């Protein structure tokens, strides 16, 4: 800014011929000749901004003003001027400064005017700082010309505009992305600008140091910032903020969106997680228990997930089993589950439920398959029942259930043969049919009937259910009659259930349930159970909820004689009233529940009268703690008391501290868990749990877990309560998918327009391809891999291509993009028969370009005789014409030239259209007879 002002001053000084002299010398040597021409002529002849033929320069007059403003400046008339003569004043503007009003004026002698006013317009582009705006020349006979410089101190205007690059930004996770932007200085001063970047977490700038940029007024600076996108970035939009600052001032700010694609989400890194573990624990009697486990969980390949588990070893004692559970090791039969969007296959340890009437809770070892489509599904099980230590027998089981959507109804049918062994064996052969229908008020009505055959009988079962699910509200009414009851794979013989949950206001809700069941089993000849609960709940604040609950439940059982002389009836009736308070603040929580109640117990020994007693039963529980990513720490307490008929109170108190998955400070990566619990019972009976565990990550996917527990529940044969130690060494690794998901190919520049990739046709890095909701970005070689439904075609997002490039439609595999350009077809209508001009409106002419693959493009009539193709890919095109809508048929003169599009430049060719020639006959022939010759005879025709 200052440099330019200085240059202007030097230019002015050079033009004045005094550049080499200091101001004082200049003033002394100036010899402005006496005016020989009128002042007005001088004003017109003195070129602005420079020309001056001498004079004495006086101290300047300085004012301040902003660009685009006018300033009225008062210039004093120099005292040195002779008072007895007229004075001519000439105002000479500099640069783009504008003088409003007359540039010359005359001050008559004796008028006594001591100052003049000059109005100067400051140009919009005036630079900030002190600028010479004009000079006032005072010319008087007998005196040297006196020059008063007029300077304007132009105020600073800052106007920095930050413009992001127009191209869409996309990047592959783990690679770099270049973020371009422009900085334009529309102010009036030179600016030194720093660009500050605000990056998503984990991103970094590749350049070591981002220097400041100096931009003169009116200049534009293009910047490119190279950013590193972290490999773990997930697919989606990320935002990069750019803020331009100068010193402490923020001048401009923009946020740019970068579309990040992580092919690992569909690539080799996201295959199943294979975890192999060896666990070892001592049980309560000091025996060594060992367990090897192998699990696989995750995507096997496109849309297919695997969940597999296998375990083997020696498991002798309950304490070791409990220790293994703490370590995450479980001993169960091998199982394998493959899940796809439309099917699931479960092999090994498996089980399912067919329906309320044709079998619930059937488990065994075999295979289960569940296939489903939009309007049907099939569930099939074939297995053997699980053996037990007391009943090694295994029974075959199979079942089949099919559902089909017929109109608005869903029809189902199922057939099953289920059995298992054990102390109370179950058996069922059933066949049933059911339906589900939409009903009024948003409900669904379901019904089923089935013939059930079981050990000792058979019967027709039925069930009906009305279900309503609406947001947070739900209602369920269910009535079931299943002969055979729970010994025939049902919940009970008869069941009546009602559940309602309603949100009354945004703070209040209520839930209620009532039920009644009857059953008969190998243990009980009759077992009746019924009850209800009612729970209103109110949210005092967003995080604090209080609830009241009243509940009552009872049962009456008639047991079969398990031994000679045993059996009889007994029952319970329990009533409770409770209150619950739960709240949380940030990561801290508190929950407390208290119940008051009583229990009425009856028992009728075989052949004796009923004995009844009623005792109170109260308890209070509370837990409070902290929960977050760093783990969970919780304090727990429970106090419970009852009283017998004699008034003796039995009270048990539990206090404990529990920590789970807690990140240990100073031991990075190690998580700890532990529990201390003390239970005080009647008569000084104490029991306790002490447990501690560590999970220690090692290297290369290895980790170790250790666990130590002393629990009063486990004691040795000798009665002592030992410490039970457990250890687990595991290795976890994510393996690649069996088959890489998605479709792969290249996005390439189809330079010759043949839609095949030829040698020398490069890939298009950064091109975005989409299929359905899936998307991917091509790597540096142009290669892409995209997921989604393989039946759909892959399309290129043209917003990711450079200007002028377009995709050649959707396809699979390699995708071509071509440079497109406009092409104009100039239509020239030839004179009729070479002699008569033809005037035809060509607006309804249709020009079609057809490429080698037969694809067509249509042109628009952009002018009276010009048809324009806005965007044609590279290639050779034949032209077709549809001129049928013209007022007079025209015929393109053959051969029609080939339209060749080879680059970015527009193409233009001319096609001649010939009118129909006029044919005339000499009239000698019979009227209406055909001419003897087809040779046309042309004649001159003007006008129509």
């Amino acid at each position, binding site marked *: 800014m200052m440099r330019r002002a200085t240059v202007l001053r030097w230019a002015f000084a050079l033009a004045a011929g005094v550049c080499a002299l200091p101001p004082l010398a200049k003033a002394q040597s100036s010899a402005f000749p006496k005016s020989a021409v009128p002042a007005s002529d001088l004003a017109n002849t003195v070129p602005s901004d420079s020309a001056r033929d001498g004079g004495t320069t006086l101290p300047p007059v300085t004012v301040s003003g902003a660009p685009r403003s006018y300033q009225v400046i008062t210039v004093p008339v120099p005292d040195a001027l002779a008072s007895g003569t007229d004075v001519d004043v000439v105002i000479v503007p500099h640069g783009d400064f504008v003088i409003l009003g007359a540039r010359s004026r005359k001050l008559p002698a004796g008028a006594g005017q001591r100052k003049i006013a000059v109005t100067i317009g400051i140009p919009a582009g005036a630079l900030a700082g002190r600028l010479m705006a004009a000079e006032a020349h005072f010319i008087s006979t007998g005196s040297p010309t006196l020059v008063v410089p007029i300077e304007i101190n132009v105020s600073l205007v800052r106007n920095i505009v930050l413009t992001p690059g127009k191209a869409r930004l996309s990047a592959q996770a783990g690679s770099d992305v270049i973020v371009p932007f422009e900085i334009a200085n529309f102010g009036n001063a030179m600016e030194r600008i720093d660009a500050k970047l605000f990056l998503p977490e984990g991103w970094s700038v590749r350049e070591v140091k981002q220097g400041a940029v100096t931009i003169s007024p009116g200049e534009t600076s293009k910047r490119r910032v190279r950013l590193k996108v972290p490999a773990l970035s997930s697919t989606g939009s990320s935002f990069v903020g750019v803020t331009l600052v100068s010193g402490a001032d923020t001048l401009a700010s923009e946020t740019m969106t970068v579309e990040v694609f992580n092919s690992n989400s569909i690539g080799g890194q996201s295959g199943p997680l294979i975890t192999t573990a060896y666990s070892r624990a001592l049980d309560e009697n000091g025996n060594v228990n060992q367990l090897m486990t192998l699990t696989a969980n995750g995507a096997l390949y496109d849309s297919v997930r695997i969940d597999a588990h296998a375990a083997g070893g020696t498991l002798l004692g*309950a304490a070791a*089993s*409990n220790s293994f*559970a703490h370590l995450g090791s*479980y001993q*169960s039969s091998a199982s394998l589950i493959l899940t796809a969007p439309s099917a699931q296959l479960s092999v090994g340890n498996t*089980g399912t439920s067919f329906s309320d009437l044709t079998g*619930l809770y059937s*488990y065994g070892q075999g295979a289960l398959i569940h296939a489903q489509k939009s309007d049907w599904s099939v569930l099939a099980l074939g297995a053997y029942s*699980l053996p037990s230590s007391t009943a090694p027998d295994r029974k075959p089981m199979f079942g089949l259930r099919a559902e089909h959507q017929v109109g608005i109804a869903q029809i189902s049918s199922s057939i099953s043969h289920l059995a298992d062994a*054990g102390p*109370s064996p179950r058996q069922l052969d059933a066949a049933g049919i059911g339906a589900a229908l939409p009903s009024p008020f948003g409900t669904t009505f379901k019904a089923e009937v089935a013939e059930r055959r079981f050990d000792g009988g058979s019967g027709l079962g039925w069930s009906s259910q009305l279900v309503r699910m609406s947001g947070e509200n739900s209602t369920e009414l269910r009535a079931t009659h299943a002969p055979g009851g*729970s010994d025939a794979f049902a919940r009970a013989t008869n*069941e009546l*259930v009602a559940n309602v949950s309603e949100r009354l206001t945004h703070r209040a809700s209520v839930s209620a*349930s009532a039920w009644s069941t009857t*059953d008969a*089993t190998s243990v*009980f000849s009759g*077992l009746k*159970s019924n*009850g209800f*609960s009612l729970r209103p709940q109110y949210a*005092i604040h967003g995080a604090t909820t*209080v609830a009241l609950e009243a509940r009552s439940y*009872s*049962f009456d059982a008639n047991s079969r004689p*398990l*031994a000679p002389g*045993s059996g009889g009836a*007994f029952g*319970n009736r329990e009533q409770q009233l409770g*209150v619950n308070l739960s709240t949380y603040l940030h990561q801290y929580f508190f929950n407390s529940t*208290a119940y*008051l109640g009583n229990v009425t*117990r009856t*028992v009728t020994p075989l052949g*004796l009268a009923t004995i009844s*007693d009623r005792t109170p*039963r*109260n308890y*209070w529980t509370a837990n409070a703690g902290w929960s977050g990513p760093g783990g969970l720490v919780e304090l727990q307490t429970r106090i419970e*008391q*009852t*009283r*017998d*008929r004699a008034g*003796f*109170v*039995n*009270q048990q108190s539990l206090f404990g501290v529990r920590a789970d998955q807690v990140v240990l400070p100073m031991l990075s990566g190690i998580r700890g868990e532990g529990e201390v619990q003390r*239970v005080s*019972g*009647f*008569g000084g*009976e104490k*029991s306790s749990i002490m447990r501690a565990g560590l999970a220690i990550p090692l290297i290369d996917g290895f980790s170790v877990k250790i666990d130590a527990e002393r629990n009063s*529940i486990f*004691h040795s044969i000798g*009665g002592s309560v030992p410490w039970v130690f457990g250890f687990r060494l595991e290795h976890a690794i994510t393996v690649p998918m069996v088959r890489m998901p998605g479709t792969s190919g290249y996005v390439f520049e189809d330079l010759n327009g043949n839609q095949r990739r030829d040698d020398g046709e490069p890939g298009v890095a950064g091109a975005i391809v989409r299929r359905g909701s899936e998307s991917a970005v091509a790597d540096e070689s142009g290669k892409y891999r995209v997921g989604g439904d393989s039946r759909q075609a892959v399309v290129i997002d043209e917003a990711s291509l450079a200007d002028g490039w377009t995709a050649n439609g959707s396809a699979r595999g390699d995708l071509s993009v071509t440079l497109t350009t406009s092409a104009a077809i100039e239509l020239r209508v030839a004179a009729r028969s070479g002699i008569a001009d033809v005037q035809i409106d060509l607006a309804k002419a249709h020009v079609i370009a057809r490429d080698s693959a037969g694809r067509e493009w249509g042109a628009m009539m952009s002018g009276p005789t010009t048809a324009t193709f806005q965007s044609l890919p590279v290639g050779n095109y034949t032209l077709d014409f549809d001129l049928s809508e013209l007022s007079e048929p025209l015929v393109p003169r053959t051969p029609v030239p080939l339209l060749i599009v080879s680059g970015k430049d527009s193409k233009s060719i001319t096609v001649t259209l010939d009118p129909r020639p006029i044919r005339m006959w000499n009239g000698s022939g019979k009227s209406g007879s055909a001419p003897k010759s087809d040779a046309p005879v042309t004649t001159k025709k003007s006008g129509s």
Partner: protein
Amino acid sequence: MIRKQPVRVRAILGLCALATTALLAGCLKSTEPLPSSVDLDGKWTYTGTQTSPVRETLSGTLTISGESGSSFVGRLDLVAVNASNGQTRLLAGLVNGAVKGSDLIDFDANLEASPWRHVGQIVADTISGPWVSSASDAPASSGTFRIERQSP
């Protein structure tokens, strides 16, 4: 300036205070234990099954720690193993019961939200019989048990 509480909040606070008072008033007062008329003190080995709704095998220890007249109190610790998937859960709770008649043992084990009612016959040092628990909104769970006195 004292901010006036909304009527609704005051009503809720009043309800909570009432509930707290009722709970405190509900704390039980105990009498002195009566001389025992039963001889159940000590540790017993518990084995059993849950036959409905889900099959589980049960094993653990019953500890009778106090007796008063024909009543007794104690604690039951159980390990329940799911027959279908082998998963283990620990159950522990207070026991209170009484001997009724000459050989009938009747006790509740507060292992879950609702107690497991055990009614069995004692023959020598063995008690066996059925048990039932009526949980809320579900059919009763039930099974059988057998308890044997451990050697002192």
